[in-house]
């Protein structure tokens, strides 16, 4: 119904519009994945026509390094249940307990969520490197310690960085809204019948929120596979490969081993498909019936003296997990030789001057700005259109459209990049953008589509439909109504989406690493390249710049409210 249907009026017009949107979105989300799957059964030599065969799969399953990459990928997902548990506790304290400094803790978690991971990982190298890490050096001073205790470049190091920087903050952000929506009278009545806080938590809150917890766990598994750059910089020196760094490795080979990379991608897509099916089943029967925003406004649980301890623990985690590595990153960018604190003239501004005057840096900065602003502007426009169509029209094929729009959420960056690369190479008119900034813009618009569209869907849905009817009945056409009533009302959300998309585009590495040609390199990829080459001084400089941009945008987005973001992230389906 609504305005869009009013525009077309007849079913033929609606059918055409529905079909166009479905085909356009499907072409960039479903088709690339199908192409990858088909290509994994192609045994022809490069350049020859497609020929059925299992060569690609054979090479995958006979490659020890690919197999161990799968094993390590699995091993690293162990951080998700741990993060879920810790994140739930933090979320519960933030929502229900009377701990001090809540605002600071919550804001810091959002900062962590928005920070690019690689610069923080570089900061951790300074602390935990086997040879020169400050923590290791300090501990070796102790009489009973011989040799380094920690190593950043290990499974433990990778898990540590992910857990502190991403997994715990994301889980907190996902679970806090679910806790806020939980009718407090359910807990209060448990208290009244005599159960204490811990019993209530265990026997009332957790069982009621079980669907939300399982959803968050599955979401954590799926989105955790997005990880690429931390594994690249911390894993490769220790010869630890995960599926994403292995794909990058295979493509970077001389000659590139496309077939095996495609087979590995397809295998991961199958695993993700299974996870996604489970995820969808859980989100579709989420028990929100018991969760109402109304009910009794909750009184906060009094933790007494414990509240200082709990708050202190949260702040200590934030300090150690987020701010210490950031400070070290800044220090690192001023070091003559990265990691060597105790040499003469240990600090210098030479790397800053060098990088800022470097032609490569300047062109990368320009590329970043072009890509970031294009993705943010075009993306926001696309997401607004899609969100509006999904909320306010009854176009045929809407259910399929919603599924297509959501699909990239379940396809981590490297796999999405791989699929889009396949699409660009296979489709004649698209190959023009191969290796150029256009490919990066396309990839990032697709990658950010699920979150952007979902957020605008929510925001459009909150605008009373009668405001629109009032416009159409007094004579305004569909486009006028959309432009003069809907858009102005949705402006705060559009600005948020623009900024979030901009930041996501600026810091992204995994989606674009396979799409970028030698001359279309944005800042994030320059940072990755420096880190890969072991040039940590320059990497720190660029890391500081990217982190500063992220902090700035986080502060601006904070004005428009984080909660709507969290809601969308949690209910992206």
């Amino acid at each position, binding site marked *: *119904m*609504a305005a869009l*249907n*009013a*525009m077309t*009026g*007849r079913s033929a017009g609606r059918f055409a519009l529905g079909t166009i949107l479905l085909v356009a979105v499907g072409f960039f989300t479903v088709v690339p994945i199908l192409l990858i799957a088909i290509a994994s059964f192609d045994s022809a030599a490069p350049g020859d026509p497609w020929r059925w065969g299992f060569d690609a799969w054979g090479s995958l399953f006979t490659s020890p390094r690919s197999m161990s990459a799968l094993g390590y990928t699995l091993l690293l997902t162990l951080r998700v249940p741990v993060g879920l548990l810790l994140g739930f506790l933090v979320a519960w304290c933030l929502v229900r307990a009377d701990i001090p400094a809540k605002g600071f803790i919550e804001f810091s978690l959002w900062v962590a969520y928005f920070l690019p991971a690689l610069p923080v990982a570089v900061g951790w190298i300074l602390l935990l490197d086997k040879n020169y890490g400050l923590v290791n050096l300090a501990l070796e001073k102790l009489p009973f310690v011989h040799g380094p205790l920690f190593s950043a470049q290990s499974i433990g190091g990778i898990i540590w960085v992910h857990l502190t920087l991403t997994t715990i903050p994301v889980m907190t952000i996902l679970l806090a809204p679910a806790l806020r929506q939980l009718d407090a009278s359910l807990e209060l009545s448990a208290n009244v019948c005599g159960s204490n806080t811990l019993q209530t938590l265990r026997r009332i809150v957790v069982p009621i929120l079980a669907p939300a917890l399982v959803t968050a766990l599955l979401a954590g598994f799926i989105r955790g596979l997005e990880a690429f750059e931390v594994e690249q910089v911390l894993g490769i020196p220790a010869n630890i490969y995960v599926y994403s760094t292995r794909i990058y490795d295979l493509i970077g080979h001389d000659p590139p081993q496309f077939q095996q990379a495609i087979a590995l991608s397809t295998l991961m897509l199958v695993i993700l498909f299974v996870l996604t099916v489970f995820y969808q089943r859980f989100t579709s029967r989420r028990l929100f019936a018991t969760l109402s925003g109304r009910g009794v406004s909750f009184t906060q649980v009094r933790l007494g003296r414990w509240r200082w301890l709990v708050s202190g623990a949260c702040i200590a985690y934030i300090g150690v997990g987020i701010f210490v590595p950031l400070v070290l990153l800044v220090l690192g960018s001023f070091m003559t030789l990265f990691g060597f604190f105790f040499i003469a003239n240990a600090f210098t501004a030479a790397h800053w001057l060098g990088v800022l005057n470097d032609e490569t840096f300047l062109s990368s900065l320009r590329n970043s700005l072009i890509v970031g602003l294009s993705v943010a502007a075009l993306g926001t426009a696309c997401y607004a259109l899609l969100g509006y169509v999904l909320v306010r029209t009854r176009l045929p094929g809407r259910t399929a459209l919603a599924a297509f729009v959501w699909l990239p959420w379940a396809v981590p960056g490297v796999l999405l990049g791989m699929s889009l690369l396949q699409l660009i190479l296979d489709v004649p008119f698209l190959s023009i953008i191969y290796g150029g900034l256009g490919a990066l813009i396309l990839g990032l618009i697709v990658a950010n589509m699920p979150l952007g569209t979902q957020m605008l869907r929510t925001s459009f849905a909150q605008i*009373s439909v*009668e*405001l629109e*009817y*009032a*416009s*159409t*009945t*007094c*004579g*305004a*056409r*569909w486009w*006028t*109504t959309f432009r*003069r*009533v809907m858009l*102005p*009302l949705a402006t705060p959300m559009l600005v948020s989406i623009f900024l979030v998309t901009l930041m996501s585009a600026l810091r992204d590495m995994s989606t674009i690493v396979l799409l970028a040609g030698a001359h279309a390199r944005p800042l994030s990829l320059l940072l990755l390249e420096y880190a890969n080459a072991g040039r940590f001084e320059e990497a720190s400089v660029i890391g500081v710049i990217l982190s500063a941009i992220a902090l700035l945008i986080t502060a601006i987005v904070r004005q428009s409210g984080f909660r709507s973001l969290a809601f969308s992230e949690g209910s992206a389906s």
Partner: protein
Amino acid sequence: MTGGEPVLQVDGLTKCFHGATVVDGLSFRLERGEILSLLGPSGCGKSTTLRMIAGIEEPDGGEIRLGGEVVASTTTGTFVPADRRDIGLVFQSYAIWPHMSVAQNVGYPLDVRHVPKAQIAERVAAVLKLVNLGGFENRAATSLSGGQQQRVALARALVYNPRLLLLDEPLSNLDARLRDELRLELRRIQRELGLTILYVTHDQVEALSLSDRIAVMHAGRIVQVGGPAEVYDAPSDLFVQNFFGRSVLIDGMLESAASGTVVRCGDGTTFTVNDPAGARVGAVHASIRVEDMHVGAPPAEASGAWEAITTVVRDVRFLGDKVECELLVGGAPVAVHLPRSAALDPGATLVLHVARSSIRVWPR
């Protein structure tokens, strides 16, 4: 628009939601300068009907004509969208755009019709004056009170002189005093401009006091159409009878006796009724409006046949200037207001006089 055509003609209008028929073959017409109310309880399909006429809901069956022009027809597949129907619509929720000033809200319909700016300002000022909001042009729309916002919504729907004005429970969100005030004003504006209005409401007072005709709706159908006095005095069925005013509903058996047709109630009370048109001998409901029950003797100017019905006082409640007396009439409870001087106690009997013509009998 052709001369003799009604402003609105609806034929066999039908709408289903998820298999349930919400509007079921509705037909009615609305003449120029007339106010027709669609009156019924919530869920009877009146708002859906209005939305189909407005063009924001597509009918599943039937035809809608505005001034003779078919704007929706399922037989020809015609569907003119809302923005080309030239009608005005006011919602219960006001639907005032929060990002625009009062003048911008009201001027918007003219703006989308490309009326020159100076003319818009002039028209907006005039219509705001009409709704008693003169000088409010530059106020933020959301800073106004509910009643003022509804006046803005009305002004916005009037400013482009639509051929038909649709009002969807426009007063329901307002408090009682404002509702009465705005109701009178609506009547004045309608007279002044000769507006044609389709008014959707569940409030009998609004419908009775505002309408030229009332269409009473029940379960997706119109059960009776007529002038306010007609639907009140001559309800076509028990639903309509119960919808207006307060009645007592007595279960009884319709019997033929020497004195004529009588209703024998469960507690043994009997009274004679005029030969009912629809009901046959057997189980019936007899209904009497509270204002038709007279305590003591019939009024002096009374004519025709009167029935004396003995009732039992069940409870007496003190209301200050009067008492509220709960009576059992033929076994059915009803509350009547009596002067304090009546001095009744629970358990006492009280004789009511009722004109035979005001007792209605409906098949059970």
